[in-house]
């Protein structure tokens, strides 16, 4: 099939739409994990920005490296774009896991399950797209990689259905005794602080 037909341009538009939707889901996941109250923690926000910029740069380098066999411009653009998208998603998910672990944020909620599925799909997508970038279109190997990617998506969809069907784990609550002790400690600190301020005057 000629890639310069209007049908191919539609494919390109859908590919861009797919990439934008994936990034939007990633942003939504990050927002839910890192700013559940509506305010980003300042240190996390700065770190996340650095992560996004570094991920963009690395994914771009990775997408520019392969030298595909003879292909149309549109075909090459699609393969490189898919590789870029998968690499970017992988980096962002690993970065999110690292940040949430460092900041001790919960990573076993429904949101985390969506992220895990999407992360796994991106990882397999990275491998299949790497193959797509060096293989000729319409060959057996090329099509097999496409089937692998499609099967992975079905597996991830099943995982999401099951995980979102199961109830989310209840958040841990502070024991009553510990709550009382912390309340007393807070009162004591307030009192001491007032004394220290009075001393300063």
């Amino acid at each position, binding site marked *: 099939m000629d890639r310069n037909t209007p049908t191919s341009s539609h494919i390109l538009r859908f590919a861009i739409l797919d990439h934008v939707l994936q990034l939007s889901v990633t942003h939504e996941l990050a927002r839910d994990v890192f700013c559940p109250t509506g305010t980003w923690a300042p240190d996390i926000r700065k770190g996340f920005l650095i992560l996004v910029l570094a991920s963009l740069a690395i994914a771009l380098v*990775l997408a520019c490296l392969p030298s595909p066999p003879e292909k149309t411009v549109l075909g090459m653009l699609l393969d490189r774009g898919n590789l870029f998208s998968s690499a970017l998603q992988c980096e962002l998910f690993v970065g999110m896991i690292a940040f949430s672990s460092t900041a001790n944020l919960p990573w076993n909620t429904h949101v985390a399950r969506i992220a895990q599925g999407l992360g796994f799909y991106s990882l397999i997508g990275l491998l299949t797209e790497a193959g797509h970038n060096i293989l000729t279109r319409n060959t057996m190997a090329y099509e097999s990689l496409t089937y692998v990617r499609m099967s992975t998506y079905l597996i991830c969809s099943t995982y999401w259905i099951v995980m979102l069907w199961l109830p989310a784990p209840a958040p841990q609550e502070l024991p009553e005794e510990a709550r009382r002790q912390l309340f007393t400690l807070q009162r004591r600190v307030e009192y001491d602080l007032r004394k220290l301020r009075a*001393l300063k005057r």
Partner: protein
Amino acid sequence: MTIHNIGFFGFLSVFLASILGIGTHYYLRSRRRELYPYGKWEELLKRLAPLDHQNIERIAADPAAQLDQDIHSVEAMSPQDIWRLLGGMRGIEVMEKNCSVLVDLVFLRPAMVSGGSTHRRATSVERAGGWSGTSAVSKRPRGPDVRRQPRQNTSTRR
């Protein structure tokens, strides 16, 4: 396969190894935190930084620090003295770190009690963190700075 593609696969391998390595590291760290939410006992002890306890006692013994004293009628330490005795900014940072350990200990306490060796563990905390009386004060150097070496005493005052 062209030279470009060999370079691409080399870069891809490094990339994949890094992604999987970092992901596994943080995943295992999260799992460990799930199993031991407030850390293992030994890890908590390692996090404790020793303080010059004598200086803290001097500040606490200051008349202005007594609850029943009117701070305007007694001769209190100057803020500069308190700052110096605390060990400056470094001393404040060490106390802040020790506070987070104390909070974790609050949560770990039920496990300690069920373990049946509360006293032994409490004593080991005091040894590691220097939360003790004055029985071994003379064994360590005096001075306002925060000390790095753990104090070697066995008192159990909490």
